[in-house]
Structure formats: structure tokens, C-alpha cells
């Protein structure tokens, strides 16, 4: 932990600088610095750096951190390394409700938080209801993930149905549906960030209590923890964090699944350190993905969600295969 923390901060800084300095239009380093410290709204290079790159950077940092911590909390609460906002169907539930409320209620901006939260809660409830059908057979941790992917398909089918009514009307939001950072997401971010900050503080506050859960229900109760209260509040914080990120960037997967594992390997499991490390790591991952999305096919832009799916899918595969090898030994 002693060296991992500073290293992570250095990496975050490096990627952030790279993020600001590269893109479809070459901007010399001097200009980038000038744009940050003596902004001239008449200089188009400055506009690009501040209004198109810095804003995206802020969104990537926030959403990465929020999704990663959300995943960490969920994995702790369920004591299951396979759960995350995306594998439990939470992301697609939130997305489906956002699309529904855009189509039928004409909602937009921060007003989308409530429907998104409702969708996330419903998805989570459905996932548990479905996994409950299998109680007593198979590996319960796996059941939860399978149920989550099933609920995910259910909600994304509902999204598809609404889209098919009038594809032209949704032309502009399709990239959001895959999960993407847009140049204007900072507007939603301004609405969501205070909420996220409160949730993050709450996460740090309940951190010690959550560590108790790892001992198992009975042990935790003996140690004086109110198991249901702790688990419930941690889960609530996790949901708020992930929904606040989904409202801004759409359903970007895998950050919440992979980062907690990386954190465990590098920074350990208990205390506040790993939580903060996980937040930083998530921010790093999404910022790097956004950098790749903006530069890989420049001047064309890819969706951050797709890039994350590509990298995260591969990482997930490695995770699964490595776990299997360890078990086999």
C-alpha cells in the first residue's frame, strides 16, 4: 500500500495530462498549459482543451470512481467477487427507465435521476427474485450473476422496443445507450456530483462496519454489528453511486467488476485505503478508455462503453480463467 498509493496518483496525473494533450486536433503542450492558466475564449485551441477535453476528463474521473466504488461495496456486501452494477442488471434497469421516461414523459437532465434509481432498484429486486428461484442448487454466487445477466437482457429488450417505435427520434442518444462520455455530460455531472460526493463520504464512513461483514453474519453480530443495517446502507450508497454515473454517461460496464479485484491484489482488502485506491483506479481506467476512444480512430470517435467492453471483457475472461486455474491446483 505504501508505494501503490503514490504510484496510482502519478499514473492518474500522467493519464490526465495525456488526455488533455491529445485528440483529433493537435494542440502543442505550451498551448495546453496556456489554455488552463490563461484561458482565451477567442482561441479555438483553448476552447478545445477546456470545453472539449477538460470537461470529458472531469466526467471520466467522476464516473470511473463512482462505478468502481459501487462495485467494491456490492462485492463486499454480497461477499461475491462476480457482482457489480453491470452484472447485477442495475445499469440496464436504470438505462431502460431513462429511455422510457424520455419517450413517454419527455424528461431530461437531472430529472432522470429518479426514474434511473427506480429502474436500478427494480432490476436489483428482479435479479434477487430470479436468483431465489434457484436456491439450493448450484453455486449461489454464480446464480446471482446469471440472474443479473437475464434481468439485463430483459431491460435492454424493453429499451429496444421503445427505440423501435421511432428510431429517428433516438438517433442522438444511441451512443449514450452503449455508454459514452459526451462533451456535454458535465452539465449532468454538475447535478450528480454533489450527490455522489455525499455518497462517497458515506461509503468512507461505513467502511469499517463493512469490514465486519467479511467475518460472516454471526461473527459480525457478535462483534456488535447490526448486519442488516450495515449491508442495507452500504447497498444504498452503492446504488446511488452507480445510478449517478449511469445518468451521466450511460451503462459503462466492467469498471465496477474488475477494479475491486485489482484493488484487492494491490492494496489489500480492509480499511479506507483500498476504498480510495479503488476510486482512483476506476477513474484511471475510464479516463484511459476515453483517451483510447478519442484517439484510436481519430478524428472519428468511438464509444467509451465499447472500448471498456473490449478491455473489460478480456480482463473478465482472464479473471475467470485465472480463478479456475487456482481452483484446479
Amino acid at each position: 500500500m505504501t508505494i501503490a498509493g503514490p504510484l496510482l496518483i502519478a499514473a492518474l496525473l500522467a493519464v490526465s495530462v495525456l488526455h488533455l494533450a491529445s485528440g483529433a486536433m493537435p494542440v502543442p503542450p505550451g498551448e495546453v498549459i496556456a489554455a488552463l492558466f490563461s484561458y482565451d475564449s477567442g482561441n479555438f485551441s483553448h476552447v478545445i482543451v477546456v470545453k472539449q477535453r477538460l470537461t470529458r476528463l472531469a466526467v471520466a474521473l467522476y464516473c470511473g470512481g463512482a462505478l468502481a466504488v459501487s462495485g467494491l461495496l456490492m462485492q463486499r456486501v454480497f461477499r461475491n467477487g462476480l457482482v457489480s452494477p453491470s452484472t447485477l442488471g442495475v445499469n440496464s434497469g436504470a438505462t431502460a427507465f431513462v429511455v422510457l421516461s424520455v419517450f413517454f414523459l419527455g424528461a431530461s437532465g437531472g430529472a432522470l435521476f429518479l426514474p434511473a434509481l427506480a429502474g436500478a432498484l427494480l432490476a436489483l429486486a428482479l435479479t434477487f427474485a430470479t436468483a431465489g428461484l434457484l436456491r439450493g442448487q448450484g453455486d449461489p454466487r454464480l446464480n446471482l450473476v446469471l440472474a443479473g445477466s437475464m434481468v439485463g437482457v430483459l431491460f435492454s429488450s424493453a429499451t429496444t422496443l421503445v427505440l423501435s417505435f421511432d428510431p429517428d427520434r433516438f438517433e442522438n442518444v444511441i451512443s449514450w445507450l452503449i455508454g459514452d462520455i459526451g462533451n456535454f455530460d458535465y452539465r449532468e455531472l454538475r447535478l450528480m456530483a454533489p450527490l455522489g460526493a455525499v455518497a462517497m463520504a458515506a461509503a468512507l464512513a461505513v467502511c469499517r462496519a463493512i469490514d465486519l461483514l467479511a467475518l460472516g453474519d454471526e461473527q459480525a453480530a457478535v462483534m456488535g454489528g447490526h448486519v442488516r443495517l450495515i449491508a442495507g446502507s452500504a447497498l444504498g450508497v452503492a446504488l446511488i453511486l452507480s445510478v449517478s454515473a449511469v445518468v451521466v454517461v450511460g451503462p459503462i460496464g466492467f469498471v465496477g467488476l474488475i477494479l475491486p479485484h485489482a484493488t484487492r491484489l494491490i492494496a489489500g482488502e480492509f480499511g479506507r485505503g483500498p476504498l480510495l485506491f479503488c476510486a482512483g483506479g476506476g477513474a484511471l481506467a475510464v479516463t484511459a478508455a476515453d483517451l483510447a476512444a478519442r484517439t484510436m480512430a481519430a478524428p472519428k470517435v468511438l464509444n467509451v462503453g465499447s472500448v471498456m467492453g473490449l478491455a473489460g471483457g478480456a480482463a473478465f475472461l482472464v479473471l475467470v480463467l485465472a480463478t479456475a486455474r487456482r481452483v484446479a491446483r
Partner: protein
Amino acid sequence: MKPYLTALVAMLAALPAAAQEALRTITDHAGYEVSYPAEPQRIVSLHDWTVTVMAYELGANLVGSTGRMSGDGSYFVRSGRELYGLTFDDIALASVHGQLDMERIASLHPDLIIGNLGDTLEYRDQLATIAPTIIFDPMNGRTAMENYRDFAGWVNRQETFDALLARYRARIDALRPEIAGAGGHPSYVAMLPNPENGSIRLFRTYGAQSQVLEDLGFRPLPVVGEVPEGRQDANFSPEIIGQMNADWIFTTHISDRGEDEAAMLAALEQIAPGATGFLDAVAAGRFHSSDRFHVYPMTFRAMDYFLDELAGLVQARN
């Protein structure tokens, strides 16, 4: 063996009938050879803002078309409504766009079905059991005008097409000096700002709009070459706006949503703050937005509409 025998018998039985009725045989844009009555009496179109509007403009015997659902649950012919006032009181609703119902189409008793490649190809075998089916491909890489000429030949309206084309050419020749100006070949870019995620879509071709511009001698900016070959358009980072400094910038809006030119300019400014300040076209009054459903379909009415707009712009400036 039996199916072949029955097919043979059916062919023999059909021969005298075919000899009486004049047939036309063409190769469509998907490469199928299709034979059908030389003057089809009951044409059903399966794509509204390409096939339907062309058939209607040429006065072909159109009995039905696919349509789209609007927010209140009623159906309309995209672009047919805007350009010709065509509604489903005039022709029958053959299916909802992209959701073909074979029985509904068959109940119109068509003697020719025309669909577009993207939406119809996978249904072609089924459709061919109802009536001879032609696949039209507006995005096959040839010019919109060549494709329209093919289409006119298919529905036996070559003469109408030639007359409309001659009128259009005369108009282009008359307006070219006035619109294209002294230099003769102004540069242009056709784009669409996406204010939801801040990207910009550039078009290689855009129906009637780009056809008219090309005929007037406009040339696209080099950056448009980044759009992949064979694609109509692609999404770009707003950072390329520095390479978009053309003499003219064209975009489109959807009036139904309450959008207009000012809204599109605001969207552009939102995506790239300050852009409207340094893009020369904006300052020169050469940023122009047209109603999308008036200028995308490739018909002479649409091209006339866009020419009217351009002429109006130039006159207003002089």
C-alpha cells in the same frame, strides 16, 4: 422430383399468358433478375422517403406504401407528406416501416413490389411469392440521379423522368452563375451537429441536397474523404471543426420537433463554443439549414425545394 415436374407444368401453362402480356425484365440493385408487367398497375413501395416519393412524383401506379408511426399513434409517409401532401387517404398502408406484415402486403394484390436494400433484402424471398419484387439501393455508391434514372425505367416512366430532368438541368444552368459565384467552384461541407454527445456527423452524400450542390459545381472539403468509402456518413470529434472552414456549411433540422436554423447554429456553438465566431461561412451568411424531410429524398420536387432555398439566400444577400 415431383416439385420440378409441377414447376415445369406451371411454366408451360404460364407461357401463352406471358406472350400476350408485355413483360419487362431488369436486373435490380441486389443483382436479381426480375420479370414483371411492362406497365405495372398495382405497385407497392416498402420504403417511404426513397421509393414511395419517387414513384409518386413520376406518376407510377402506386397503391400502397410503408409508413411511420407518429407520437399520437397515426401513420404518415415520411417526405411524401412534406413534399407532396401524400397521406394514407391517398394510398394504403402496406406495413409499418421496418416491420413488414406479409399478409397486409398480399391483401393489396400488388403486381410489383419495390423495397430498398437495407430494410427489404432479408424479406425478398417471401415478397417474391406475392409479386415480382425489385430491390432498390439508394446507397450503392452511384449518384442519386443515376439511381433515380434506373428507377424511372423500372416503373415505365422514362419519358416523364427525362422531361423533369431537362427542366431541372435548365434551372441549374440558369442559377449556377448566381449561386456558385464568380469563382465557380465554392467548397462546402454537409454536416449534422449532435448536441447530445457533442459529436459531428459528416456526410459524403445527402440525397437531393448533395446532388444539387454537385450539379451546381460545389466541391466537398478534403475532410469529408475521412468518411469510409461506400458509407454515406460517419461520426467525428468536434475538434475537426478547425478543418470545416468551407465557403458554405449545410445542415438539416426537423421542423416537427420545433427545430430551425437558429437552433442548429446554437447546437453547433454548444458543441464547439466559439466556432460560429471563426467559421467564415457563418459570418458570411452561408451557414444554411434545411428541413431534413424536404431535402433528403432524391426527387425533383426535393431538388427544386433546395434550389429555391439557395436562390432565396443568394437574392437576400444581393
